[in-house]
């Protein structure tokens, strides 16, 4: 881990340092604008009077939010998406973490090959996976399509993400801590539960976060593997086909707001916790 030293102390003698730093600050601001302009448009259109989102804005109204609340199909799709994402996150994180342990510590000889194998589901075009799963579920497994098949489809690419992230973290893990625990009488399982897992928790959390993010907005594979249900992205897609009405924008805005609120709360808690653990951590020799 890089030591957090005050940049001003380590600043090189170069003349350009200050303008570089100012330039970078400006660039950062520009980039945030770039990232958020379409989102702002999306939000603004949700308040637009006109039925088809687009410039110019004709008037301001909250009616699309009302319509959204009354649109049961939309709300059901939203519910499905959230359910699927929650289940996928839990499953992917658990399965992926377990697999990461074996991948790093299980004495697998060709580690790079294993990594490639795990990276492949992320890298194959989604259309191919979607069609493949549809045919596979229908003809080989004779499984009816439902949210279960959707979850299965999502697990295909979220588990590899979790495995790779946790494995990366696990690889740099100092096993001396576990042996110290063993010396103090802890069984391997206790050591893992109380020493290893808490320390790699950030990586596990990152994996869970990525799983939720990817699952919630997953469209292509879901389109092929969903049964008679809708998820939010497939619903939005059908709306785009028949003309996006601003109620879709309203949903996206609400989802965004809820997410930001949730992240804000999480950030508060994390920062408070980290202040404590940071102090404790700096005393240990390695991270």
């Amino acid at each position, binding site marked *: 881990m890089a030591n*957090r030293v005050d940049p001003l102390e380590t600043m090189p003698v170069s003349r350009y340092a200050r303008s570089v730093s100012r330039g970078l600050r400006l660039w950062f601001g520009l980039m945030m604008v770039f990232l958020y302009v379409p989102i702002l448009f999306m939000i603004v259109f949700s308040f637009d009077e006109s039925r088809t989102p687009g410039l110019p804005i004709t008037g301001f109204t909250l009616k699309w939010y009302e319509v959204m609340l009354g649109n049961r199909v939309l709300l059901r799709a939203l519910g499905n998406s959230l359910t699927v994402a929650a289940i996928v996150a839990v499953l992917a994180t658990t399965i992926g973490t377990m697999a990461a342990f074996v991948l790093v510590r299980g004495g697998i000889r060709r580690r790079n090959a294993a990594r490639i194998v795990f990276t492949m589901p992320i*890298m194959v075009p989604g259309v191919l996976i979607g069609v493949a799963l549809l045919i596979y579920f229908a003809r080989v497994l004779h499984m009816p399509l439902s949210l279960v098949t959707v979850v299965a489809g999502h697990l295909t690419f979220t588990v590899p993400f979790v495995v790779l992230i946790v494995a990366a973290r696990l690889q740099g893990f100092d096993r001396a801590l576990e042996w110290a625990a063993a010396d103090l009488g802890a069984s391997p399982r206790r050591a893992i539960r109380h020493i290893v897992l808490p320390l790699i928790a950030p990586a596990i959390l990152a994996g869970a976060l990525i799983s939720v993010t990817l699952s919630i907005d997953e469209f292509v594979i879901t389109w092929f593997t969903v049964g008679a249900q809708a998820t939010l992205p497939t619903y939005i897609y059908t709306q785009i086909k028949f003309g996006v009405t601003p109620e879709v924008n309203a949903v996206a805005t609400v989802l965004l707001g809820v997410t930001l609120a949730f992240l804000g709360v999480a950030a508060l808690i994390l920062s408070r916790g980290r202040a404590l653990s940071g102090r404790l951590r700096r005393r240990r020799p390695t991270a």
Partner: protein
Amino acid sequence: MSAEIVGGAAVAPPTTMTIGRGARLRQLAPFLPAGVILIGLFFAPLALMLVFSFWQTNEKLDIVATWSLQNYANFFDNPTYVRTLAKTIIIGAGATVACLLMAFAIAYFLARYVPRRWATIALLAIVVPFWTSYLLRVYSWQAILGEFGAINQVLMGLGLISEPSRLFVYNDASTFIVLVYVYLPFAALALYASLERFDFTQLTAAQDLGARPDQAFRHILLPQIRPGIITACIFVFIPILGEFLTPIMVGGANGLLIANLVSNFFRNALIPEGAAVAFMIAALVTLLLIVFRRYLQIEDVVARG
């Protein structure tokens, strides 16, 4: 080998050497669910598709077991596939370079000049767009880039142009811009994860020893963050090979990329034909992965302690 497993510390573990068969199986057991998913939900279905790609579709849109290399031959006979794949690679490479440059500046700024807490918040702010619908974000770009979209309206309003510019109207430039927009956060996260571990005092040390800033940059910084750069490249370039929604929505009639050609087949129930083209893409991707296998370290993409 034991030194490899134990994360670099060259100390022998206290546990004993011989591991019986049962214990070995129990050791590998946690891998089972992931293995089942990998094989059962990925390799098996794709193997089926691979077989299909060698079969044919009949007039009733059934897949019949007539083995033939026709679909693959088509990929090479019909020049459009190679050309479109080449175009996709070019646009993908361009977008990757653009993303890298833009994201590097962001990541460098956050890693070096911003305290950890604010950097985390900034990174989350960069990731949050992912929580809104991809489709809607691209749709919003239509409203920005179109002939009567925001850009043109602003330019006309400022009097810079008298007629709407058709510079970004439904063409490859639009596709490029939107692809960079969509994948910039990936690149930023991957680069940040690498830069965050970098000890910036090394740059000062280098300069104390007489290096110019750009020399320090090139010889000290870049080599150490190479895994991050490669990760960013892979996470931007390879998914672009599978992009079909963005080209259709903002790319116009001349902006079709290779995944559009594949989906044209699938949408007409021509599965073997589509599968063949899709596997050619997958083959290319696998090739790239093998070439860059040493760099496949997915660092903590969310910077935490």
